[in-house]
């Protein structure tokens, strides 16, 4: 059986010079850096990242990773926009329309997937290749490849406008596209880890983020 966390490498380039994993819980945030140079092989780093992510998640923390390529010389703290070498991904993050402090219902997840279908169809029609698709635990993520787009003001404006435009076009009363995920140092949920949000109930259970398609 394939470890779901290993699907993280569909999103993160195993050759990436530095990987930041961030664990967040109740306002506490902890950043961990995994520079490739510190490992004998890229495989050993991958195993370490997966192990740390799983362990912290089992301890009740939400686990994220910086989705764009970090500069090789970055060595401490949490990654900021200026620390990003280039952009690898356009993230379309679909979540509940109303602010919520609890896990989503199955119906809300389905609504997010329906909206993701609409967005994906639109993007494909415009010439984008198939996205990486992830069920984030409480919604849906679509990741479109940006082919090492320069991390500059122009790309920031373009992505911000595109995401806002998609939101204006596709949002509905139940689910919406998060307008705030255009920043270069965006962190995103690690697949194979549970999304802890509020209290888990039968109708609103904690769910593990998982890869849907790639």
């Amino acid at each position, binding site marked *: 059986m394939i470890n779901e966390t290993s699907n993280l490498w569909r999103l993160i380039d195993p050759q990436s010079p530095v990987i930041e994993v961030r664990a967040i819980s109740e306002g506490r945030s902890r950043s961990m850096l995994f520079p490739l140079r510190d490992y004998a092989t890229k495989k050993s780093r991958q195993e370490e990242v997966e192990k740390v992510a799983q362990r912290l998640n089992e301890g009740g923390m939400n686990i994220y990773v910086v989705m764009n390529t970090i500069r090789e010389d970055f060595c401490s703290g949490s990654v900021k926009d200026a620390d990003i070498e280039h952009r690898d991904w356009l993230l379309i993050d679909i979540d509940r329309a109303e602010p919520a402090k609890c896990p989503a219902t199955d119906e809300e997840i389905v609504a997010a997937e329906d909206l993701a279908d609409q967005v994906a169809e639109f993007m494909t029609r*415009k010439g984008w290749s198939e996205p990486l698709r992830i069920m984030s635990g409480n919604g849906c993520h679509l990741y479109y*490849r*940006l082919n090492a787009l320069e991390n500059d*003001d*122009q790309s920031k404006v373009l992505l911000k406008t595109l995401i806002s435009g998609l939101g204006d076009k596709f949002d509905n009363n139940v689910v919406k596209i998060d307008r705030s995920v255009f920043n270069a140092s965006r962190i995103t949920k690690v697949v194979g880890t549970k999304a802890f949000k509020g209290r888990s109930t039968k109708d609103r259970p904690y769910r593990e983020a998982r890869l849907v398609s790639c």
Partner: protein
Amino acid sequence: MLNRDTKINTLSLLRATIAELTPVQLSTGLVAANDATVTSHYSESEFPKLKTALDRISPDTGRGLGSVNLTQIIPTDYWLGVIWACASTGSDEVKALAKEWSQRSSRYTEDGFESAWKQYNPFHSTPVGLGSVYKLADRLQYDPSNAVYLSDMANSKRFAEKFRGKLLGVKHTNKWLYFDPSKGWVQADHLAAVGLAKTVVEDMANEATRNLLDNPDSRINKDMLNEVKRASKKPNLEAMIQLSLSEEGLSQESLISAANAAAKAVPLAHCLPNKVDEVQLVQVSNG
């Protein structure tokens, strides 16, 4: 494994997608069509070049539609085109530079500048870019030393020179006093001042035409003729009048003080404006 060999132009794809999401509202620029790539490649090292270019372009031009029309011999109405070209860089440093450049015009307003900057649409199918600014600077060959010669400020000085001793404005009002040879000092409304400003532009047109006939290839003579066209527009006539109020001897703080100053003035009858019948007159003092 990610496919990093994809040969798509990501920027073009982004623009095309956004263009469908945010309908294009801007008119197509004449130069902008060839300029799309310039907007994608601004770097901070380009800043000095841009600064030099802006120093050679007068901000005293029409607002325009957001393009730079280089099909004109002397391009006009390019202000918004220049602002949007600067906005295309997405740089705060360039924004400050564009603002400083715009402030050299008497028509500058903070709100007007900010509004124009925000209106820039980077997803226009043919966005205007810095290339247009550089071409415009080359075309205009604008000499900063001419700034006082071809500008609203210069025209206000011309206005003041022509009517000093014969005209007095009351600050913060639209009231004026001028000397009517048959009635003495009389009160006039703002339209009268506009009529006088027109005579300044007519003088400039005559001068420019004469100079151009003498020297058809002279850049400054062409610029002068261009300035006549610019100055003849209503906002520039208004700017000429308003700026003249700060010229020595052209204004007073109140109607009373203006009347007192007029009483002491010695107007030269032969220099008076010749369209007295167009002016609404109310006699306030015979001096």
